[in-house]
């Protein structure tokens, strides 16, 4: 990705292993194919089993071995996941807390990154470090004080505690990652804008944001996955059933019935996985690169 190889160097690398003829090569590659096969099986099989299970009836779970295919492909499990287990409400709550938080965090985070990296002032290095400092601290350290604050502000029982906490949690990494991208932008671009008479805010809006647009999308994706999959914060600040996010809802799923209803449970797990999987399939290169770049967080 980041390395650029000149053709002259690359050439011997691709031709060298081909020397021992076709059948010999195939035999030599066999262990590699075997490893890859086992690897794919380990990763993909649980997901396939999950999807198949989401169509089975309770009777099929209890009386048939695990490898049997569902007798009929009906969506009734998905229906009861939404009607009886409130998956729809949970999805809505997740959307209504994660997206506002994401939007605010990106907006103020990108602005701060611009202010820290493009503008010139004393102490900006220390402020960047200050933003990074909180990253290593466990979320448990924030729970009790925040719980107290939200309680006294009468925010418990609303979606605000989640939105506010998610926003704050997403800011450090956003600032840090976007600042890294701004560092790579040629200074001349901003100097030219200054000469043309643009003020700082105009420069931020018309040049800063468009220039790191791709970076913003990558950061947004990474933050989306981190927030969407959060359990700790959601578990702490959603006492009310109607405010639960997807993760908390799933966690309490088995408690909804006396005995486990396997079909609806698998359907609910599938719903929560399929959404992010589709998202990922379309944007996997960006997600991989972003998460690797964001890995500085602890």
């Amino acid at each position, binding site marked *: 990705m980041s390395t650029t190889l000149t053709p002259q160097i690359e050439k011997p690398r691709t031709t060298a292993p081909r020397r021992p003829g076709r059948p010999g090569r195939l035999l030599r590659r066999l262990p590699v194919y075997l490893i890859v096969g086992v690897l794919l099986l380990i990763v993909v099989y649980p997901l396939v089993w999950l999807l198949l299970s989401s169509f089975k009836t309770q009777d099929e779970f209890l009386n048939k071995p695990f490898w049997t295919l569902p007798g009929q492909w009906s969506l009734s499990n998905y229906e009861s996941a939404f009607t009886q287990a409130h998956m729809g409400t949970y999805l809505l709550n997740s959307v209504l807390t994660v997206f506002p938080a994401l939007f605010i965090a990106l907006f103020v985070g990108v602005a701060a990154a611009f202010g820290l990296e493009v503008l010139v002032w004393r102490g900006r290095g220390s402020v960047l470090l200050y933003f990074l400092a909180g990253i290593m601290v466990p979320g*448990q350290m924030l729970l009790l004080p925040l719980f107290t604050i939200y309680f006294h502000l009468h925010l418990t029982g609303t979606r605000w505690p989640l939105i506010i906490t998610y926003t704050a949690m997403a800011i450090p990494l956003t600032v840090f990652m976007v600042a890294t991208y701004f560092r790579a932008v040629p200074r001349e671009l901003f100097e030219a804008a200054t000469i043309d008479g643009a003020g700082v805010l105009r420069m931020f809006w018309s040049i800063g944001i468009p220039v790191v647009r791709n970076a913003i999308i990558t950061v947004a994706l990474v933050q989306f996955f981190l927030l969407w999959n959060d359990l700790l914060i959601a578990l702490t600040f959603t006492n009310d059933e109607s405010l639960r996010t997807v993760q908390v809802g799933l966690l309490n799923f088995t408690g909804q019935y006396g005995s486990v209803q396997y079909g609806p449970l698998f359907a609910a797990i599938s719903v929560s996985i399929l959404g992010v999987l589709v998202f990922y399939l379309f944007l996997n290169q960006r997600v991989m690169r972003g998460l690797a770049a964001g890995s500085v967080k602890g």
Partner: protein
Amino acid sequence: MKDVLGDKRAVLLLVGPALLIYTLITIVPIGWSLVYSFYSGGLLSGMQFTGLDNFTKFFSDTTALQALWFTVRYAFIVTIAQVALGYLLALLYVFMLRRASNLIRTVVFFPVILPTVAVALLFQQMFQVAPTTGPVNGALEWFGGSGQDFLGSPGGAFWVLIAMDLWRSMGFYAVLLYAGLLDIPEDILEAARIDGAGTLNLVRRIVLPLSLPVLLSSLIFSINGTLKVFDSIVALTNGGPGGSTMPLTLHMFQTSFTYGDYGYGSTIATILTILCLMFTVLIFRSTRRDIAKG
């Protein structure tokens, strides 16, 4: 020119909001939590100053010590296995699959983005024995073994947890380390190959030393994540059976919200924070020394 880019009001306008939110919602609570750890009581019962009592209580509290031991043991095993497995995968991508590894990388990365709760529920079902037999026990029986209640025994639950966390994270460390391996200059590898180095020798003498920095930063990243493990345990075992998979994070959560003891909960959180800082500094310092030596 300098005046525009050094405009104090613009700096305040751009950096201010983020700085304010971050300070109020992250930094202030951290300090606040530190103060709490010297008090006992909760939101409803009121707080009393008790000095270092909570800290001495921690070291005579068997549940807390068990949780501390579990956290360290778990973090140690998973961190080493995570980075080792990721490194092996990265080597596979770079040296055996070469450029064709794109699809494999994408598929192995799948589990990284999946919600932990969903994955944990999935693994619960996979390792189940009754009333319905999951694939793992089904396969065991098929090979002539007998089904086991993995999640019902302390040892079994521990290893299912570790298997699950490795399943979830190996693709991530593979991609991270893959990027590090790509940064090794091709001509160094070529020169070693021309000198007759086999694959094993090449990895041991050239690739491993050159990828040491990215390996160590993966270790730091990994240990910080594993010491804070919460989601996967809450969803898979909820600390059971019998508290055998209870990490500090969950013990803190239960102390605070089930028993309403904010002071002691904060103390556990503080000890966890110290643990994270300690391990990070430890690995960081050994990084410095190794690079200086090499």
